[in-house]
């Protein structure tokens, strides 16, 4: 039971938004879809949700192409920052509209969530603040009962308390339904614990598709005097290096092995690793 992206490619007139991305999302996992702004995360989610069509490649659900396929699409819900849901609709109206399409849409659950977040269901989406609009969209996604739920920036505008509540609810729902959650977020350190697997996109290309723990232990950080660092890391795969005066800090792939005196070794957080892996070329 999985969604498979096969060499998924999307190009617009000016740029290549996704370049032959291939990955598999298993049901019953929580995955992180990470990358910088414009890396292609939203494009990927749009292609999975039949909102836009790939230039090349396909999205398969249990082996069946998802494109224009109502049966497959019923198992998928994509939530995003875009205004696809008409903003003048009331929350109540959106929730009751969903049951025409998602047979397992749980209206009671939606009501419970609205109460948990103190969201007034009679309000229109246009009347809500950014944070509450995000909350509303996440609630629609969670209540849809879909097997694969894509949340694109579900933390946008949410205060710290609401974020805590959101993570707890995702885990709760995950436990209940065994749905797959694919979450794109920029608050990586906060969410790192949630992800069993991470996909990292960089300028449309998939640069990492790993188990979270493997990813985190796949690199180390070495700090010290620049010459020493350069000497130590020569022959190693340096992901990125930055300088501070005569000192350097390099993020390197692999294990440190024997470390000479004068150099400090540490393990990067997932966020630091991501920053290093998706850094601009110029800074090196």
């Amino acid at each position: 039971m999985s969604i498979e992206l096969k060499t998924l490619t999307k190009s617009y007139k000016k740029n290549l938004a996704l370049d032959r991305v291939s990955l598999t999302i298993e049901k019953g996992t929580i995955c992180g879809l990470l990358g910088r702004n414009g890396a292609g995360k939203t494009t990927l989610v749009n292609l999975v949700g039949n909102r836009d069509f790939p230039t090349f490649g396909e999205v398969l659900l249990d082996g069946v192409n998802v494109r224009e396929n109502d049966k497959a699409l019923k198992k998928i819900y994509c939530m995003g920052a875009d205004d696809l849901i008409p903003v003048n609709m009331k929350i109540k109206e959106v929730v009751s509209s969903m049951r025409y399409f998602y047979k397992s849409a749980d209206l009671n659950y939606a009501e419970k969530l609205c109460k948990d977040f103190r969201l007034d269901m009679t309000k229109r989406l246009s009347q809500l603040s950014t944070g509450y609009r995000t909350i509303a969209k996440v609630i629609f996604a969670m209540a849809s009962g879909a097997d694969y739920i894509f949340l694109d920036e579900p933390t946008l505008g949410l205060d710290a308390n609401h974020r805590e509540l959101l993570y707890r609810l995702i885990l709760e729902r995950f436990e209940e339904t065994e749905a797959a959650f694919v979450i794109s977020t920029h608050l990586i350190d906060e969410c790192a614990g949630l992800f069993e697997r991470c996909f990292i996109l960089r300028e449309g290309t998939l640069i990492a598709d790993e188990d979270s723990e493997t990813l985190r232990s796949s690199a180390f950080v070495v700090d010290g005097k620049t010459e020493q660092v350069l000497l130590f890391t020569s022959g190693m795969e340096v992901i990125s290096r930055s300088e501070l005066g005569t000192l350097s800090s390099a993020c390197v792939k692999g294990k440190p092995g024997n470390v000479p005196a004068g150099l400090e070794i540490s393990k990067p957080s997932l966020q630091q690793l991501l920053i290093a892996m998706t850094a601009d070329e110029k800074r090196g």
Partner: protein
Amino acid sequence: MGFNSPVFNDTEPLYIQIAQWLEDKIVTGQLRADEQVPSTTELSQSLKINPATVRKGVSILVDKGLVYKKRGMGMYVTENAVANVRDDRREKFFDDFIVPLLAEARRLGITSEDIIEMLKGGSGK
């Protein structure tokens, strides 16, 4: 307000940190022998960590014999869990505390005699 969750660092794998966190609770007596340990679900939702990771951490405790599963009821702390953790940590005491202490002392030019002085209660200058 959510449970006061620890800040997990980046040095060790998350599941190992969860195991250690639970061990701390056992050694400090917050979780006593034959007391129930929070379920995977409860741990996952309070700590905001993927249940698969939590399960991995708890299974370490099961393997070490610190925790056992009562059919249909949940996970409980074993009789000699505290003793086991203490022994375990005693063995690791040298590597976990003494080695870094000696390394730092070396860096600062503090001799072994100075350290012994400090242990006796003086300032070891």
